[in-house]
């Protein structure tokens, strides 16, 4: 075992592989601080690109649109996922299989197919494309991810405590609110953050369903980089990436803290 652990190929690929995950993110962050306009060499430290992005009205309104969309999507996704998981927990074997099929079908269908299919229906119904249609598209997709995260959390929950509550005369509603939901809370938050970030970062569904007048941040970035690489995009990228890393670490810390060693990291991720 030790022989293979120290095997040069395993070590080199292992270390390089992890470096490979971080390298592009590092380049974006460094270039967002790079004073050189053409980004071909290091032109000294600057915050110029951040100021430029913050002064760009297009960028600001796109950020606001994206935040609105992601927040609505996250709330709806958590609602759908939570009600679904509460049903799933007490369902029969058949019921569970049926529920899982509803979840996994959404996860495996390519996003392009879902987006174009929704596009067909919504335009056929002559609904104007915009915030509402985009949120619908995002929720179909993101609530499936939220459900998987919540299911993982619910699996770690023992039913005994709930049964004890019921045995002691608590009504089902009060068991739900005083036992089940507080125990699921870290999972609910994790599912919400995941749905939020998936929606905030989404290109495909927004591309087909947000219509021509609504521009989310990812769509704006797509438009920027279609023509050229601008230092401004690096500044936006650095901001988005660092805030997403912060929120991910926060959720992992929260889930890890509340479970106190019950279940591995992989279990929490629903693997």
């Amino acid at each position, binding site marked *: 075992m030790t*022989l*293979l652990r120290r095997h040069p190929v*395993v070590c080199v*690929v*292992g270390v390089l*592989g*992890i470096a490979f*995950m*971080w390298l*592009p*993110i590092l*380049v*974006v962050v460094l*270039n967002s601080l790079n004073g050189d306009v053409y980004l*071909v060499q290091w032109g000294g430290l600057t915050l110029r690109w951040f100021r430029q992005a913050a002064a760009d009205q297009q960028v600001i309104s796109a950020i606001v649109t994206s935040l609105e969309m992601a927040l609505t999507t996250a709330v709806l996704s958590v609602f759908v996922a939570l*009600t*679904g998981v509460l*049903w799933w927990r007490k369902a029969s074997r058949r019921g569970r299989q049926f529920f899982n099929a*509803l979840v996994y*079908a*959404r996860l*495996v*269908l*390519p*996003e*392009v197919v879902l987006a*174009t*299919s*929704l596009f*067909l*229906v919504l335009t056929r119904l002559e609904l104007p494309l915009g915030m509402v249609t985009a949120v619908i598209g995002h929720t*179909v997709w993101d*609530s499936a991810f939220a459900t998987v995260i919540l299911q993982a959390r619910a699996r770690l929950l023992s039913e005994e*405590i709930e*049964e004890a*509550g*019921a*045995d*002691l*005369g608590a009504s089902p509603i009060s068991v739900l609110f005083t036992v089940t939901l*507080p125990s699921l809370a*870290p999972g609910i938050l994790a599912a919400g953050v995941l749905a939020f*970030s998936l929606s905030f*970062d989404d290109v495909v569904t927004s*591309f087909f369903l947000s219509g021509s007048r609504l521009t989310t941040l990812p769509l704006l*970035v*797509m438009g920027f980089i*279609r023509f050229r690489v601008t230092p401004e995009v*690096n500044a*936006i*990228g650095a901001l*988005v*990436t660092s805030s*997403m*890393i912060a929120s*991910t670490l926060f959720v992992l810390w929260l889930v890890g803290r509340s479970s106190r060693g019950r279940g591995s*990291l*992989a279990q929490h*991720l629903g*693997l």
Partner: protein
Amino acid sequence: MRQEPRLVVREWVQGVTTDTGDSRLARGRKITTRSQHEALRLPSARHLLLVPTLLLVGLFFLVPLAFTAIYSLGTTSLVTFETHFGWTLLNYRSLADSLYVGTILRSLVLSAAATLACVLIALPMAFFIAQQRRALQTILLLAVIVPFWTSFLIRIYAWINILQNGGPLQSILQHMGLLDGPLNLLYTPFSIGLGIVYGYLPLMVLPIYVALERADPHVFEAAADLGSRGWSLMWNIVVPLSKPGIIAGCILVGIPATGEFVTPAILGGGKTLMFGNVIGSQFLEVGNLAFGSAMAMCLFAVVLALLVVQAFAHRPGET
């Protein structure tokens, strides 16, 4: 903030009974209060909980898919952009004849190659992580997962910075004397493949890691004691043990790679398109909804085929 469930029970026990509040008491009473216990299951009202999921999936998932299936059998006039519904396989037939078939096949090969590259990189990575001390394992695993949960768009975009002519990769290669002229890697099938590998690698590392973590560590020691070294150990012990992980990873990577839209749009520079982008352009640029729907059904069929293959591949491994 969050209340420890056991404490909640303890409070109840103290409130309901005059006892000291041992939660074992609650468990003891289980048999006598069956009816109350059943109340938790609320036979009919409980099913209302499924309504949001059913509505969402029914209205905005199944109905749209059925629409696509119906559209794919109709015809869209490219003059009036109106679709006439009929029961014709015309779209599927012209798909097989058209110029697109080459593009689509090439894009499927590219997805498969990227998935294979993911396996080759992820296997030693997962093994490397699984062999470390517990605390270090968690840190390394986080180092793989955290980038994955940041913006996919920005992570793919980052490669433009690295690969573009005059970018850092070109300067490094030129300094090392490995390259004379410009790099010319950006906006090629290679750069798309690289983007896909980079984008989805964590989805391959995680399941392989989980499979290896579940394996008995003594197996590796026993194999080493019996003289298995290096490649032989890798090939005879590590690969078979991580097989369920590899299969799961191939599905997790292969499916999004097949329908990939963002990576070719950014790193393909409009030159090299993949299946997803061809479908998208039929809907938004050409306006041939019926033909686009037929393509979408084909992509759907490819994904279903992958899942069927996976179901068969997984069977012997399960006991």
